[in-house]
């Protein structure tokens, strides 16, 4: 074994130590134990009022020890990677079991390494002056877009996360995970009104991504455009109507409507509205949805998950039929299903659980223009903030930040952001048209579950949902209002 070995080099760890720690973790019995080492270095910069007001760098490192006995999980962590502290954590986690000691598997098997983000110079190690240039360029471009742009805040953040996962089942996995993003947010003002716009992106990329593919000017112009547009936005309508979603980030619909509901832990416990629906129709025939952790360079991708399992391209919904759940090691074992490599955790302080990676719907055959023309009166939403879901009753929301009325098949006035709400297990059954223009988001997604945040991606082509509730304030022109 050679190559990377970050923790061996940095902390003087060796295989014997790892075996000793695992043995300590199983010293009171248990079915499985793992150690998760993490070393995270990060940088962030922020420009406001055309000044680099803040710059910060940091290091966070530690080890989390997990012991599983049946359905029970014991967990302890330490930010001190000395043998005494790791052993102490191992013995603490071992308290979940109560029986004679178990022996870990002999020898580690490292699976062939994948390389989804072969960044030769991680951006955390790049010159800080280059990063300052990015945010200053974003600031200038946004202000130059239109004189009504009065406030601009541009930020840049990157990190490099080294992990090492070893387990009593022989797992041995290492990875170095770069991540970088830029964000620009603007406020436009006139005497009559103010409005805001926001745009950002990045991925598991090197710094040159922002000097080539997606420049500061790209994000600045997009953010400023949105803010200017919103100055004239009128009230959004309220009630049920046809909704067309634009491609890309509106894929957050999938993340909220079905993604969380298909995480295996909820389904094992039978607390999800999708429990027991494998093999059943949960979407129209035009819908095929996957969760794919194997896409190069993407924010939501990983070579291995945080349990050391290779990630996969997992079929969730195939032509409308529910095919499978997203699982981790514990769910796979308890449910007797394959481990899809979706076991993730926010940091060494956290217990892993099933999480999404890049969740998107495959392109269909419809022309996006035809989709718009097919709507008599509805809403066309192209940009969103975030969303949320109650996985038990299936209700989900996502909040539009850029949307337009569709009137007689034409996109007309921009409308203020409104929250859209629906029911996960049936909203996709009302997808009657799926465009041929699949796009993934720009690389800004962060998913929260049970207090743990992880980076994710979403994507979708233009689609039409026949009926969805829009949370606006404007009366519809048909139907009476109760007083």
């Amino acid at each position, binding site marked *: 074994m050679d190559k990377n070995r970050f923790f061996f080099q940095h902390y003087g760890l060796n295989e014997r130590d790892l075996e000793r720690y695992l043995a300590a973790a199983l010293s009171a019995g248990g079915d499985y134990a793992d150690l998760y080492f993490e070393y995270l270095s990060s940088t962030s910069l922020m420009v406001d009022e055309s000044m680099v007001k803040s710059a910060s760098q940091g*290091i966070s490192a530690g080890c989390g020890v997990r012991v599983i006995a049946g359905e029970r*999980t014991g967990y*302890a962590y330490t930010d001190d990677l000395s043998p005494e502290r790791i052993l102490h954590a191992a013995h603490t986690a071992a*308290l979940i079991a109560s029986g004679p000691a178990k022996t870990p598997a002999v020898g580690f098997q490292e699976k062939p390494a994948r390389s989804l983000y072969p960044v030769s110079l991680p951006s955390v190690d790049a010159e800080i002056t280059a990063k300052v240039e990015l945010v200053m360029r974003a600031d200038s471009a946004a202000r130059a877009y239109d004189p009504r742009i009065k406030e601009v805040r541009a930020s840049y953040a990157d990190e490099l996360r080294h992990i090492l996962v070893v387990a009593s089942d022989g797992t041995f996995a290492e990875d170095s995970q770069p991540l970088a993003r830029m964000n620009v947010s603007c406020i436009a003002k006139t005497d009559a009104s103010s409005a*805001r716009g926001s745009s950002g992106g990045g991925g598991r990329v090197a710094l040159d991504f922002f000097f080539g593919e997606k420049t500061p000017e790209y994000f600045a112009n997009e953010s400023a455009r949105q803010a200017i547009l919103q100055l004239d936005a009128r009230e959004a309508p*309220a009630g049920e109507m046809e909704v067309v979603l634009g491609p890309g980030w509106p894929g957050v619909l999938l993340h909220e409507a079905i993604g969380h509901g298909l995480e295996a832990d909820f389904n094992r416990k039978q*607390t999800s509205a999708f429990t027991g629906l494998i093999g059943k129709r949960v979407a129209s025939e035009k819908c095929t949805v996957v969760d794919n952790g194997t896409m190069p360079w993407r924010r939501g991708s990983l070579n291995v998950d945080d349990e050391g399992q290779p990630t996969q391209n997992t079929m969730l919904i195939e032509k409308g039929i529910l095919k499978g759940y997203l699982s981790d090691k514990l769910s796979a074992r308890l449910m007797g299903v394959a481990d899809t490599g979706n076991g993730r955790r926010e940091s060494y302080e956290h217990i892993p659980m099933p999480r999404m990676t890049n969740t998107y719907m495959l392109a269909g055959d419809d022309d996006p223009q035809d989709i718009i023309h097919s709507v008599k009166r509805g809403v066309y939403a192209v940009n969103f903030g975030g969303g*949320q879901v109650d996985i038990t009753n299936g209700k989900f929301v996502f909040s539009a930040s850029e949307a337009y009325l569709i009137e007689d098949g034409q996109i007309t006035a921009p409308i203020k952001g409104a*929250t859209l709400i629906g029911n996960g297990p049936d909203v996709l059954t009302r997808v009657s048209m799926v465009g041929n223009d699949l796009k993934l988001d720009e690389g800004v997604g962060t998913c929260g579950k049970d207090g743990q945040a992880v980076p994710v991606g979403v994507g979708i082509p233009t689609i039409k949902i026949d009926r969805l509730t829009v949370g606006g304030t404007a009366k519809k022109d048909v139907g009476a209002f109760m007083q």
Partner: protein
Amino acid sequence: MSTTQLETRNSKLETDLKDLAQDIVRRAMSGGATAAECVIREGDEFSTVVRLGQVETLKESGSKAVGLRVFYGKRAASTYSSDFSRAGIDRMLSSALELAKITSEDPYAGIPDQSQLGSLQGDLDLYFPDVYSLPGAERISYARRTEKAALDYDRRIKNSEGGSFDAATGHKILANSHGFVGEYRRSYCSIAAVPIAQTENGNMQRDYWFSVARSLGRLDSPEKVGTIAAQRTLRRLGARKVKTAQVPVVFDPMVASSILEHIFEGVNGDSVYRGASFLAGKLGEKIAGDSVNVIDDGTMPGGFGTSPFDGEGVPTRRTVVIENGVLKSYLLNSYSARKLGLQTTANASRGLAGTPGIGPGNYFLQPGTKTPQAIIAGIPQGLYVTEFLGHGANLVTGDYSRGASGLWISGGELAFPVEEITVAGNLKEIFFNISEIGNDLEFRGAVACPTIRIDGLTVGGE
């Protein structure tokens, strides 16, 4: 199952950390900084989840981390680390000093003046070691009892996400180059239950309830928490959509707090000076109804938002934010205060890294005299919201649109549960349209609000 003895934090370690923080500040200054501020945080946590009577997770650990902010004149930078070795601290110091060279000169940057610094004296009732006084098996028993009370309440409660018990203590130290050194400890414990009820046709609903306190002795009983969790869950069974309508909406205290927080976000000094708030430029103006009085008080003994000093070392205080509907004060840190030509209100909130933000003390709407039941009784047709889904407040424009669930009010009574609806309006009007304020103010966190009734909102549904 045996328990572990958490390491006693001995006094030598405490002194060591205070000394360390001051030493880091000294070294930053001798490295060329013109001002420096060091924060050290350490803490322990314990949590257990029991599901269907069996322990599902058991987690216990401690951690510590250090953050440094340095100034070169009007340039600032910050670094942080979890590595307390000599090499780790050295690296943190040198990175900060290097990084400060590339930031811009900001005339308003800096730490508070020496005359502003200080710490409230006396015991603020923030730390009770009894949160760790239960042996491990009894902590698990708390979680189990909380869940059991919910599961036993009604036969339609067949499932659960679990009952939980959590405890944590924290120790915070702040030192700066004006000679300020302050520290305090906090403790926290909570129990919760998340039951799931099911109708005969298989539809499921989930709700929760919890109790949180700084001392174990002040927690509600597990049986009380589990029972309320069960009642809230059962109340949701059979939920349906309703027609889009403009009706009076009553918000229960938990969701009302979330609406009150939008005022906090609106008076956040960092948003105000950028004009990124619907309340910017409105000091002294009426922004809410006459009955609206909002206070921020960081001094209340035992409060979840209480501390002896803020994130920059300024003693906390009681600030009247809104009085009889008139905006009396923003909430500020030293930076936003300088930007606005005002004085800090001691609301600086300092994480490990970056510039201080602004955080609440104990932030609340003063209660009225009516009971929630009386407020509901005055409504012929309306909505009682018990949960929000998603966020949806635009602090710049005031536009407001959120998913919600709750109960329909008919003839002054709670009639049937509703879900898959939205509530929308604009924050600039919402606070004028608070027509009733309940008498049921209770702190379950730093932000608290009684039941409130707001008119003029649009309920989006069918």
